């Protein structure tokens, strides 16, 4: 029976969906519920990870320290995980604090072609004896061989697993199969998959990933995550159960956790909006959606046109300022017509 490790980013990716305004009590109540459900890893933090709270990508309602304190207090069986992107997270200021506060699993992320940026952070964390995964974001922007090359870098730096993110929700199952298969054959550490649901494929893509050999799967309660959301955790647990894939997660208790999340801190359940579909089609980071909608309304341009243009310009997370640039260009174009 295949066995997968479930990593639950409800309290991290979901923070994107509420402009990083999850409160301490939300972290507490969900950590307790996920812990009771025996979720192996519970990821917490700002949507863009440790140290990312800023005007550019959004200021967090609570500090990293407060989040980690609350999570640590409420997780007894589950491992406490965080996502971090070198540049946002610094070794001295952020990582040393997270290490000392007892974070168990560190997921060090980079754009899919920039794994080189993670070496120092992964090295530091391995030396501190921590469990470290490498994460390749926006993985649809790289072909399978490039992903293997980048994953090998992560493995050589000390990553104990490599997770690819479908940050734009752009994959169809065959895309996932092709990439996960290449990675499973190309590196020796476990491979993971993080889905987004822009094209309604998050669950199917997660199943495809496991069938291709992935052994780390991300899923959020009610799919709470950026844009159209992630793979819905309680659904994939149920589906995996049907497929005979072992997760160790208690189904009823994760259903309870999802109910709690919906009741307490998901103001609007993720849905596949028109702009989400366009975002997925053009391969643009799901986390841009709220800002695209806001700027489109301010500038009087069609958000779908902004996504189309961002896709052409191959925009990646961290380039939020490009949204305004594109909107202005579109505005000018309109005036010219």
């Amino acid at each position: 029976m295949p066995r997968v490790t479930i990593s639950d980013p409800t309290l991290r990716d979901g923070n994107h969906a509420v402009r990083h305004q999850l409160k301490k009590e939300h972290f507490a109540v969900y950590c307790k519920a996920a812990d009771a459900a025996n979720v192996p890893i519970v990821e917490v933090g700002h949507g863009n990870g440790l140290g990312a709270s800023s005007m550019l990508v959004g200021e967090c309602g609570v500090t990293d320290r407060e989040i980690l304190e609350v999570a640590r207090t409420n997780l007894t069986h589950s491992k406490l995980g965080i996502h971090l992107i070198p540049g946002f997270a610094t070794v001295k200021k952020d990582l040393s604090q997270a290490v000392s506060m007892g974070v168990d699993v560190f997921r060090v992320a980079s754009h899919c072609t920039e794994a080189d940026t993670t070496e120092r952070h992964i090295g530091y964390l391995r030396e501190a004896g921590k469990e470290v995964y490498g994460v390749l974001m926006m993985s649809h922007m790289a072909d399978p061989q490039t992903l293997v090359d980048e994953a090998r870098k992560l493995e050589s730096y000390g990553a104990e697993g490599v997770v690819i993110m479908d940050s734009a929700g752009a994959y169809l199952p065959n895309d996932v199969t092709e990439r996960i298969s290449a990675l499973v054959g190309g590196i020796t550490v476990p491979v993971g998959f993080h889905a987004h649901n822009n094209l309604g494929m998050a669950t199917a893509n997660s199943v495809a990933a496991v069938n291709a050999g992935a052994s780390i799967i991300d899923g959020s309660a009610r799919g709470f995550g950026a844009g159209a959301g992630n793979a819905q955790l309680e659904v994939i647990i149920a589906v995996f159960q049907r497929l005979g894939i072992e997760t160790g997660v208690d189904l009823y208790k994760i259903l309870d956790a999802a109910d709690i999340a919906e009741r307490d801190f998901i103001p609007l359940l993720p849905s596949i909006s028109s702009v989400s579909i366009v975002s997925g089609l053009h391969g643009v980071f799901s986390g841009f959606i709220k800002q695209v909608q806001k700027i489109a309304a301010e500038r009087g341009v069609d958000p779908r046109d902004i996504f189309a243009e961002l896709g052409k310009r191959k925009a990646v997370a961290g380039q939020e300022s490009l949204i305004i640039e594109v909107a202005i260009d579109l505005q000018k174009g309109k005036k010219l017509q």
Partner: protein
Amino acid sequence: MSNASDAAIREDCLAAIAPHVPVLRELAGRRLAITGGSGFLGSWLAETVTALNDEHKMDIRLDVLAYRASAWAADYEHLGGRPDVSTRDQDVRSSFEFASDVSFVVHAAGIPDGRVHSSDPLRVFQTCVTGIGNVLDAASKLSNMAGLLNVSSGLIYGGQAGPGGFTEDTFGGLDIGQVSHVYAESKRAAESLCAAYRSQFRIPIVTTRPFTFVGPYQKLNRPWALNNFLRDALGGREIRVHGDGETRRSYMYGSDAACWVLVALVKGTPGRAYNLGSKGVMSIRQLAEEISLQVERRPAVLFRTLPAAQLRQSDFFPSTDRAMQELKVQETVGISSALAKTIAWHKRQASC
């Protein structure tokens, strides 16, 4: 570095060279240059040469050439500060000359670190191939050239080891399109260039192909299982083995490695290659358990810490028959003792 550590290392060097002192007299009064001299092997060679000078009055002058030789000299002042040791910051990718009275050369410059293979394969290739080209050019200008030893790599064999380990004349395939093979492939190219220089310029070149080492001077932040296990054990943490631990390796202690290199340099047959490694084969599981036993707090050893890690057994250990028969060399330090010495050295370093 503490005096106690100096004494322990000196003792190891003297034990390793004891049967070979008559052979190593060939080096007496000569000048020896080592490229890549600040690494693990280079540091042990410096320890061994200075032991030969102090205890056997060999009067060997040692030139340590390395990318950061001056930093090495500052870190290990007991070596770098000696009058019989001189250091020069030298990147072998740039052309250079040896001191005109150099008679022996050990070319040990290379980048075995897999992290660099992935991130900067071009530098790895240039260091191996351009580097050996520059070394051979410089050596060809020496009027008293008596011997050059090219430190290659056991990785050039490719494929899987046979039951007795890799022998010097069995070559498997390497996928040259894979960046991860750049080190092995460039070491092959370097050996090929050595063969060309030996043929055209009659430089007496011997090759040695190192496998895995253990001992003081090994940095714990390097990406190899042994280093990771030691780092975690010394840090008081459990030892995590991602696979099932059945992959096999062998670990040669630093003083033995340095001794074998010097014997090969003066006694090896030009054009011939000799494996450099231990015949004491063990699984990664046994290694982790042995390390755990040697650390006071006995850290737990965890296997398959993540599900479905791809279990591929890639054994990597040499046959040492040729070296032992032709060079008459032996190992003097077994793995248990090597680990104990290494752990003791790191503890002393930490307390300095």
